[in-house]
Structure formats: C-alpha cells, structure tokens
C-alpha cells in the first residue's frame, strides 16, 4: 500500500514525469487548436491537506472555469482542466476568430471550452495509457463556472474517502503572450496510484 502521507522523492519524481509526458501531449494538442505557441511549465506534484485545497489556485473565491472528467477502467480517478475567466474568454475568442472581445461566456463558448477540455484530457490520458499499458476511459465532460474552492472541492471530496491528503498532479499551460493560462489536474484514486506505479516498475 502506498502511504500517501509519506511519498518518497523517487515516487514524486515518477508522478512528475507522468505529468510531464501527459501534459506535453496536451500542450501540443492545444497549440494545434489555437495555432499558437503554447508553453508548459514543469508539472508540480502537490500533496495538500484538505484545509489548503481552496487556495491552490490563489484566491479561494476567484471565479474559474472547471471542466471535469471521470477516468475509469484500469485506472480510476478524475481529470480536471481549470482556466481563469479571462483565459477562458481569450481562448474562445481565438477559437471563434472573434476580433471584438466579449466579457461573458455564452453557451456556445461553454460548449467550445468543454471540447477543448476533452481534447486536452484525451491526449493526456492517451500517453498515460501508452506508458503504463493500463486501459483508460474518459467520461463526457461536465463544465462549471464558479469559485475556485468550490470547484476544487469536488476531487478533494473523493480523496476524503481514503485519507487526509489530496494529491494533485498539476500542469500549467501558457500561450505565447500569456493570454491564456490553464491548469490540468490529474487526480488518480489511491488503488490506481499503486497500479500505475507497479506497472512502471516503481513499487510492488
């Protein structure tokens, strides 16, 4: 059993590397979609106490867009793509080729953002699946615009069933001129963590 409160540095490196490869693919997909250069920051593996979850993206009450997916089959868990509102607007303006920037997300924008989330998450988990040899399925996206803390509480609650900490593998994307920043969180369930690690020959 992997002790989530005592992950050693090798395990953290492995998780970080998984995030690296997965989000590298996702960054390429995003760059193709918007036809711009997209930078990716080195993924962070964050192990947090529940009480600190709200602040992971800065201010707990900042409105953000969350696009949430369930992973199932041989790896269970969630993937969430989170964008701040300005980034979401910039992204949809780019996707729809609008020159007059809007300041509110409409239904069409939400639908486009869901699709972007879908493509990013799918490219992320494809590399996870290729790397581990474990089968993975992704649910349809569900999108929500609300306070950062409320959105991040959803995956945190799932960790609540098994322990006292939350593990996020977080990657930040940046479009060339920093008009879009987004975070992609991979949130595997604990049993799946073990499967991923043993499939890579790290434990077990």
């Amino acid at each position, binding site marked *: 059993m992997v002790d989530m409160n005592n992950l050693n540095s090798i395990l953290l490196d492995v998780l970080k590397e998984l995030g690296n490869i997965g989000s590298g693919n996702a960054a390429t997909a995003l760059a193709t979609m918007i036809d711009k250069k997209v930078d990716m920051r080195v993924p962070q593996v964050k192990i947090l106490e529940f009480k600190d979850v709200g602040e992971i993206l800065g201010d707990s009450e900042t409105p953000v867009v969350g696009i949430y997916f369930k992973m199932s089959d041989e790896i269970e868990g969630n993937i969430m793509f989170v964008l701040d509102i300005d980034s979401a607007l910039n992204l949809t303006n780019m996707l729809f080729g609008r020159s007059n920037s809007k300041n509110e997300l409409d239904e069409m924008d939400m639908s486009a953002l869901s699709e972007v989330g879908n493509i990013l998450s799918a490219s992320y988990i494809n590399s996870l699946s290729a790397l581990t040899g474990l089968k993975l399925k992704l649910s349809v996206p569900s999108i929500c615009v609300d*306070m950062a803390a409320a959105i991040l509480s959803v995956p945190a609650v799932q960790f609540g069933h098994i322990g006292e900490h939350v593990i996020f593998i977080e990657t930040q994307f940046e479009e060339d001129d920093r008009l879009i920043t987004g975070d992609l969180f991979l949130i595997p369930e604990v049993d799946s963590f073990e499967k991923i690690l043993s499939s890579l020959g790290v434990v077990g």
Partner: protein
Amino acid sequence: MEIVKVGMADFKVIKSTGILTTLGLGSCVGIALYDRINKVAGLAHIMLPSSTEIKNNSNKAKFADTAIQELVKEMILLGANKKYITAKLAGGSQMFSFDSNTDILRIGERNTLASKKKLQELDVPIVAEDTGGNYGRTIELNSQDGNLLIKTIGHGVKNI
C-alpha cells in the same frame, strides 16, 4: 472585527465578537451553530456524511456525524448552553453533473441529509437553510447576532 477562517474538513468556535467564515463551499456543507444568549458561535465545514462508512476516520471535522458532535462539545466548553443552540445550514450543492447519478456526485445532497439527521439526534433545531443547487457559496457567521451571510457568484447574496 476578528475574522476566523474555517478550512475544508475543519471546525472552529468563537465567543462574541468575531466572524467565522468558510470560502467556496461546493458539495461540502457548512453547519453554523449559535447560542443567542451566551453569544457563542461554531462553524464546521464537513466533506462526507458519515464516519462509520469509512475506515480512515480519525479527522472528526471531516464527517457530518462526528463534526457536529464535537462542535457542540467545544461550544459548551466555551460557555454555550446546549438548550440555546440553534443551527443554520448552507452548501451541499452538486457542482458537476453527469448522466449517471452515482453516489459520489450526489455527495452534496447526502451531506445535507446526514447533517440534518445528526442535528435532530442532538435536539438542535434548524432555524434556516440554504442548500442544494449547482453553485458554490461563501458563508460568514456573525457571532454577535448569529446572522449567516451567504455569498455566491451569479446567485446573489443573502442573510439567513
């Protein structure tokens, strides 16, 4: 006035004057208890309905059943009288929806029901409630008058 933050899976008690706040409640439930006579306030931010369904249940603040019990105890230690304590509830929403109605996604509703059940068991009357929906809430419990301020994005501000 002093503002005391209550994080996820956490609870705090204060005696007048001060404000207890929890930011961005989603499917979690905020249980605001107040003794109007002794002006003792307590706020819990619970994540899950029941400590008995789970092996790893050492954090009492995480579950509706154990958190409410502890909160009442702490309030009494701070000078509250059990018979004056009343409750207000907020949160318990469903932020994301999928076609399948799995337990995990109904967690907000289950958290609300479990909180009500525990309060009933302890004979603490619920005097106001703002639960459900699909949006987040920031809440502030004022220990001077027991008012619970609820702020949302796009669903207004109210005082219950």
